[in-house]
């Protein structure tokens, strides 16, 4: 009865395969980024300087911290500390919310300055600049969607931990969800320098 006892190794393998698809999904955007950076270095530079380093850096710290808590929650559940697991998960989810709020502030500031996809200002500007901001919105938007999904999944697992469905012996679902969360972090680790720093 191979499918009745849980194969946590198989579940993790499946999760990693899924993470690869996510990596390649963002990889597609990075292909475009690298090609257009190569073509419009000056305009990308100008665009990059209009992004707010403080927002970007804060969000980096927020995400790294949330990743830490997510990782600790796995340790906690394996050690059987249910309350602690729940606490750590809540902090992780909290970080996700903080991240989204900051992202919202950042985007609305840009919108305020007339910088949004297809805005008259971008259409009038040099071609590379509109490309830069389109890529910026695309990448951070796609990443933002992943943060939202990650947050929802995290909440769902927290409920399962609460109900005891996930516990010190059966916890591969929690592990997989945190893997997903770390991937979201990983992507941001690249977005941050590419958009906020090197230009």
């Amino acid at each position, binding site marked *: 009865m191979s499918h009745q006892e849980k194969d946590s190794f198989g*579940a993790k393998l*499946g999760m990693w395969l899924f993470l690869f*698809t*996510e990596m390649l999904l963002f990889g*597609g955007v990075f292909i475009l980024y690298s090609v257009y950076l190569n073509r419009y270095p000056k305009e990308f530079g100008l665009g990059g300087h209009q992004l707010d380093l403080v927002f970007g850096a804060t969000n980096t710290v927020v995400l790294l911290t949330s990743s830490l808590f997510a990782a600790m929650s796995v340790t906690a559940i394996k050690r059987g500390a249910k309350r602690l697991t729940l606490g750590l998960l809540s902090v992780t989810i909290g970080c996700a919310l903080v991240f989204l709020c900051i992202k919202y502030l950042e985007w609305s500031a840009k919108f305020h300055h007339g910088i949004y*996809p*297809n805005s008259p200002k971008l*259409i009038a500007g040099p071609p590379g600049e509109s490309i830069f901001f389109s890529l910026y919105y695309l990448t951070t938007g796609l990443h933002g969607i992943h943060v939202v999904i990650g947050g929802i999944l995290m909440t769902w697992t927290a409920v399962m931990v609460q109900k005891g469905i996930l516990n010190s012996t059966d916890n591969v679902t929690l592990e997989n969800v945190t893997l997903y969360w770390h991937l979201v972090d990983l992507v941001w680790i690249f977005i941050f320098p590419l958009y906020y720093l090197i230009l």
Partner: protein
Amino acid sequence: MSQDTAIGQGGFWRDTGRTGIGSWIFSTDHKRIGLMYLYCVLGFFLVGVSLGLLIRLELIAPGPTIVTAQTYNALFTVHGVVMIFLFIIPGIPASFGNLVLPIQLGARDVAFPRVNLLSWWLYAIGAVIVLVSLFTGGGAPDTGWTFYVPFSARTTTNVSLAVFGVFVLGFSSILTGINFITTIHRMRAPGMTWTRIPLFAWSLYATAWVQVLATPIIAITLLLVITERILGLGLFDPTRGGDPVMYQHMFWIYSHPAVYIMILPGMGVISDIIPVFSRKPIFGYKMIAFSSLAIAAAGSAVWGHHMYTSGMSDLGILVFSFLTFIVAIPSAIKVFNWVSTMYKGSISLEAPMLFALSFILLFSIGGLSGLILGAAATDIHVHDTHFVVGHFHYVMFGGTGFAFFAAAHYWLPKYYGRRYKEKPAIVGWILMFVGFNVMYFTMQVLGMEGMPRRYYDYLPEFARLNLVATVGSWILVAGIIIVVWNLWRGLFRGEPFTGNPWGGATLEWSIATPPPTENFDEDPVVTHGPYEFKGAGVP
């Protein structure tokens, strides 16, 4: 089971005690999911071929014949989208893969049965979205299945919805891939070592990797087409600094590897059928298994050969042309090994074998014409002509399509417990084979003479050959109708099919017909390779 109207002879059809639609669309049994895929895929195949028939009818003579230019453009677009994304990509892996793979490995189901069901649902939802897009918004998309920008960004037809449907289908494909890789790693029965895995399973393994690693790129590309249309991102819009050729790169980064998603499972089917009907071990097992992986790997690096005329750099053409020729080598190895398997065998020409043998021939014609396309100088002339159309119908229909029918004749009786009649199958096969060549070989000649593809109307000098091709399509129709009707009738009302009449040595032939829901009463222990016919209960 005395009533001869009963579907199947028991097994998984009956043993859960549940019937009715709910026991199917919410079932996590890999066999039921496989059959649901099979019906959908076959249904879409018939939709697709009907559209193909209309295309040929329009092209029977120059000038307007049955439809307008706009309708014609929608016809080949929908024909291409249906055939590629709804028929041939899920075709063999999702239907026969699901039916056969777990049993061949000695497992009771795939690794993630519920994900498997989700994958079918995504397929159904994606298909519905694609179909809805034909009748809503600005009408059926008219971009060709390649959705090239800037045209796809500015046409007023319902491209966004169609593309979104394809996006959903991509997820279905990814989930199937993840499932199969995990299944093959984790669910093999004791004794099923890597060198005892049947070659069909090996080919699914290679396919699954392509599905997992390449499909996300088409997902993001299609998302970009949608955002381009709705938000005006301008990433491919030359007036805003975008580069239309970058779209082509992203599209083909997926869509070339996708052609190996289409053909590898077909090759796996052939590798399983030829030894059985020759009663001889497959020649060069390891080379065939390895060449599947080699095709998957090398095939991921040759996408640029679709873009020789696009204005790509000459260095790019050099590299991509070189790699394209490299991919041909593992295919050649497979062909030589298949033919050698028959040497001194005991060859029985039953329907599955006939389809398998014609696969080798048709795939070779298609593949060799692929070499003409891979060489830079010659591709320039035949690119975007009916030569290319001929090439890909040879490999897709002559290859995968014929493999699909081979698999249907070989495996389906096992799952229904009834079989088709042999004579009509052979008559149908002959008509298909003849009609196929009349139509597509003629199209290759047309391409050499310079007739561009996606042409609603053409110059009088192409009229005669187009007429021949259209007549060929009618012969092909006749064949397909006979084959499908014979299968259908046979599976539901034909002679009982039990035991191991073909004499296969893979695990699916060692269990009851039709297989019970749990496949194996107790975990099998594998003691011999998949093609050791001696002592495998072969009559």
